[in-house]
């Protein structure tokens, strides 16, 4: 009866995913009650607005670009840590593990204030740079793309690291030893053995971080600026304007993006020769 074990999950998904998704889809097909108190007929107007307007497409592009930047950074920074975490036999491994997940332990508001202390105009980094005479005036490190990318990479790094580490742990060390004895230096071992065998982990981590990035909102609201316009902010604005319907259409756009990526993940990130 393994199917029975899935029942709670299916009920949960129905209640908290399928149903709200239905509402969203439905809402997206009508015009806002704020602008049309009498109600409107079913229409694709919200979609033609979202897809037909260069402005919204540019925001979509910026959202994807942010996702790519944060994901790439998390991958590059996270892979070595994940590898170390997977391979170390140190008794202090749990300390490192705690450090890795520490960004998730702190609430987003506190974390953002932390970044403000570091990256602000009068923050640690700028004070230091000025004291060292490296810059004359404070650098804008916050309320722009830089701040957003830093903050999101910080908080999403644990997802990348933990996903990668669990996959790397499953790669027998004897493969690396054998490759080394056969003449492969560290880069070749990484390039020809570890990386290809961890592709599924890379795929999962990349997908996870990308989707969390393109859906993130509070960090961008707190650390972003007027240039950091992404879909979630646009959706938030539409909801404050009570235009849930256009917000729903933009939400569908975000969803389609995620689904496309999930599909791509299943196709791209596969380990050769796996059963």
């Amino acid at each position, binding site marked *: 009866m393994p199917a029975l074990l899935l029942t709670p999950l299916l009920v949960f998904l129905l209640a908290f995913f399928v149903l709200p998704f*239905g509402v969203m889809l439905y809402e997206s097909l009508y015009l806002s*009650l704020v602008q049309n108190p009498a109600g409107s007929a079913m229409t694709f107007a919200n979609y033609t607005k979202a897809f037909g307007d260069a402005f919204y497409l540019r925001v979509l592009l910026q959202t994807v670009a942010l996702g790519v930047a944060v994901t790439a950074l998390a991958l590059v920074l996270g892979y070595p840590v994940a590898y170390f975490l997977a391979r170390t036999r140190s008794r202090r491994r749990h300390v490192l593990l705690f450090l890795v997940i520490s960004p998730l332990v702190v609430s987003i508001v506190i974390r953002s204030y932390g970044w403000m202390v570091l990256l602000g*105009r009068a923050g640690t980094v700028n004070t230091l740079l000025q004291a060292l005479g490296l810059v004359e005036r404070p650098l804008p490190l916050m309320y722009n793309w830089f701040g957003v990318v830093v903050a999101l990479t910080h908080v999403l790094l644990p997802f990348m690291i933990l996903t990668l580490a669990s996959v790397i742990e499953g790669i027998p060390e004897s493969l690396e030893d054998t490759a080394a004895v056969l003449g492969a230096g560290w880069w070749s071992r990484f390039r020809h053995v570890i990386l290809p065998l961890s592709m599924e982990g890379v795929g999962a981590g990349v997908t996870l971080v990308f989707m969390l990035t393109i859906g993130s909102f509070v960090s961008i609201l707190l650390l972003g600026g007027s240039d950091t316009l992404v879909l979630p902010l646009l959706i938030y604005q539409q909801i404050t304007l009570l235009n849930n319907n256009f917000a729903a259409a933009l939400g569908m756009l975000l969803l389609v993006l995620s689904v496309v990526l999930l599909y791509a993940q299943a196709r791209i990130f596969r380990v050769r020769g796996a059963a």
Partner: protein
Amino acid sequence: MGTGTTRRAFLRALTVGSAGSAWAARLAHAAGPNIVAGSFAGVWVDGLKAGVIPCYKRKTGGDVELVVGTPTDFVQKVMATRDRPAIDAMIGTDADVFQNAQLGIIEKLQPAKLPNVAGILPIFKEPYEGWAFGFDGGRDGVTYNANKVKNPPKSWIEFTERVAKGEFGRAVLYPHLTATDGLAITWLINRELGGSLADPSPVIRRLREMKPYITKFWTSNAEPGTALTSGEVDIAAWTDGRTFGVQSAGNRHIQFALPAPGSPMLTICFMKIKNGSDAAWEYLNCAADAKNQALWNQYFPGYYMTHQNNDYPAASREKQDPTSLDRSFKNWIQVPWKELSRLRPQWMEAWTREIGA
């Protein structure tokens, strides 16, 4: 109209779950006339519990369940449960009043059930055309770090010009249009620049010139306080009450200026939700009482209250800007909220396209 009705029925069916909890709460106290009211979080709740809610309990024997959030949250909730609304009374900004009226989710005030509203100063009820009355409020001005800014701007235009010239560096906060303060100040500057309600382009152009020097367009009313005290910014378009709060926390160098031609008023209003419990009228009447307003004001020294007989607590009187106590309302500027709330989506669209997030 037919589509509208089926659509609401559909939404009602889907949102039964979220509304259910509020109904359950009400049924549990079936003995007295219990109501559900929307409030801001934190000290706002404390303020209401000091006077307004005890008053309601005394008068009716029932209780008030507070739903904490933003006016947008309340409206979203009510919109999904219009026939049996999850909330009976709510607070909101001036901008929310006309938007709610337009959505048909609030009721016109019934003077017979609200004897205390007769004592509310006309300036705090007339603009709302009977849809709401003001409870408390503040005025927008320019808050600045006196250590850095020796010569604060004398007018809003001067403020925008000096920001655009980079005189304050990249250390300026300006409210986002999604914040009610942002709507009010932006409207006023637009008017001063010769724009009209239908044409926000003058202020949008000016804001684009200012943008390189604006650290952030703030969205939460608490942001400027942190940014000013941490040295992140030196000057911010903000409100008086909040500024006095920061001052009284020991930041003497944070000063407030009232630029010409005056300060847009921002009032928090009480509204009765359509189809909500009739007992909510008593709650509103308690909020229109001078004594209850004074009790609330203990928690927000520096904000003005709306009843003509309001006797400010000593702490408040000391912090209150004298001009807000003299009731001459010289240099107080009323924002055409009715029109502005209708045009807000267009303004928002222009803002988003030209200025950004």
